[in-house]
């Protein structure tokens, strides 16, 4: 018993993704919400790597790589936005940032 069913990896990925969604839905701090997004991306990456193993192809790794790069870019811009929002509104509560309403 030294082999893991591939579905375990995918199940883990699904669980992590769901936890990321839960964080996105139930957390109010912008930074935490942002981190939930990163968690979801990581879960998807795990799926990519698993599929790469499944198909014995390197392409999944490339997708994961691009996801990482895009996540890094996203983090840079997103955190800059968070900084600006905090400067202007002195709050990090996502429910209070709703000036697009009305």
């Amino acid at each position: 018993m030294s082999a893991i069913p591939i579905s375990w990896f995918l199940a883990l990925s699904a669980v992590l993704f769901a936890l990321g969604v839960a964080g996105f839905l139930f957390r109010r701090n912008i930074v935490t919400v942002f981190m939930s997004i990163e968690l979801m991306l990581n879960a998807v990456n795990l799926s990519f790597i698993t599929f790469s193993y499944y198909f014995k192809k390197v392409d999944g790794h490339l997708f994961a790589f691009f996801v990482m790069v895009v996540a890094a870019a996203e983090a840079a811009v997103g955190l800059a936005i968070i900084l600006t929002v905090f400067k202007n509104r002195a709050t990090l509560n996502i429910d209070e940032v709703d000036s697009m309403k009305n």
Partner: protein
Amino acid sequence: MQLWLIPILPLAGFLINGLFGRRFSKAVVNVFAIGSVVLAFAWALKTLVALAPLNTPYTEHYFTWIQSGTFTLNWDFSVDRLTAVMLMIVTGIGSLIHIYSIGYMAHEHGPNHGGYYRFFAYLNLFMFFMLTLVLGANYLVLFVGWEGVGLCSYLLIGFYFDKKFATNAGNKAFIVNRIGDFGFSLAMFYMFRSFGSLDFGTVFKQAPGAPEAVLTTIGLLLLVGACGKSAQIPLYVWLPDAMAGPTPVSALIHAATMVTAGVYMCARSWPIYTHAPVALHAIAVIGVVTAFFAATIGMLQNDIKKVFAYSTVSQLGYMFVGVGVGAFSAGVYHLMTHAFFKALLFLGSGSVIHALGGEQDMRRMGGLREKIPWTFWTMMCAGVAIAGVPPFAGFYSKDAILLAANQSAPWIYWVGTITAGLTAFYVFRAIFMTFFGTYRGEAHHPHESPPVMLVPLVILALLSLVGGYLFKIPEFLAPLFPALEVHENFTLMAISTAAGLLGILVAYILYVASPGTADSIAGSFKGLYTLVYNKYFVDEVYDAAIVKPVVNGSRTVLWRGADAGLIDGLVNGAGTAARGVGSVLRRMQSGNIRSYATWVLLGSVLLIVFSVMLWGPLQ
């Protein structure tokens, strides 16, 4: 061989003058404008000499312009003997007229003081497009040039854009040409559908095997295009008005080159026409009717440029007759000789107008023979050439056409001969009214034009005299076109020559020997005179039959009814409806990101569920 250099040179001249001309002195503008065209002429000459004897077309591929499905269109230039003739005419006459323009436009500022460089920039642009038209190896490249020269024609007719009649004339030319271009476009669509290509080579190779109905349709549609560009009935109305532009423009664009594009295109399409006799005959009929019709109008015009404008329409009709009776090379032959003597007539009339400080009405001229002798003698050369007096240029080409016409349909020969007489009459009427008798105009001491204008006149005069003999186009083009057996017939030649001489004689009697006779004759045929003098009221008929209904219909039905009522109503209704729906839906837009995220989650869950329902569980 770097064919692309030939059109690119004038384009470079256009770009330089068009972009920076405002800052240049006139001398600098001249250097770029004339230099580029003369260089293009020189390069064309060098290319043609190098390519001689040019028995097979020489093609250069530059790039793939359009690639869509099975449709591939390359930007190709190709040269064969027909193109060679056209190249020489366009660049040669173009160069002469450019040089002439230096003198003619010397005192020209035009609106906004930008006239000088603008004029030469447009002229160079015209050269570019005309050369593209001539060099193009497929119908679409030809069409690019075709549209481009139309644009330049529009720009140059409206050169004095602060004058209402000039802009109107420009618009008229543009709009009438659209009708022709529409036909041309349809012809191309149909051609692509039938042959799958627009390349001359490919299309012409398939043409003999195609059904006659297809070829006839394409031929007639192409003819519509040619009628528009070459000012044939019923689309000729724009050309007389186009005289609103500067005279060199009339000479270059509206006499020597652009208007002959239709003839060129029909001659180029001979493989289609030879297998579509109906379309070919239609060309001949349109041509001869136009020739006669325009000649009668030309007899009674008093504006010197209008006379030559109608003359141009008439002579273009001759070329169509040539093409239409299957004597393609004769048509091209006349195209060339016509370019010589008509350019000369226009330039000469320009010289007269220049001498008189802008006067165009022949009734206020007269007796200018001694005052501007160079102009007089060169215009005399043109006159005998166009009248078909042997052995001058017009004689050869006109004779070739009429002989061929006689073989095809004798009535065309006879109408053509009568027209030849009329032609001789109105041209010499113009010359006699201008140069003989006494000066009827106001003060303003007439002066001879500067050498820079006279040199092109003299060169063109020489060409008008001996060009027909020197350049035997039918022999040169013989390998290109299907052979047409024409029997020399001295009787017919004598008749048409006599008609021309008779025309000159009548003109001499009416306007030199006994002035005043003309008016009394006009008086006795009052009705006919009024009809012809007013150009058969064609403009008025068009106005009443087409323009007014279209304008009124647009105003009432399309604007008030369709646009304001239906479309605006729809738009406004859509707005109202959107606002109504929005006021309901905006409750979803709570501004709360987390609720949005819930929507996204709901959506993705539903998406998965639906996809399972649609395609069933995978595997």
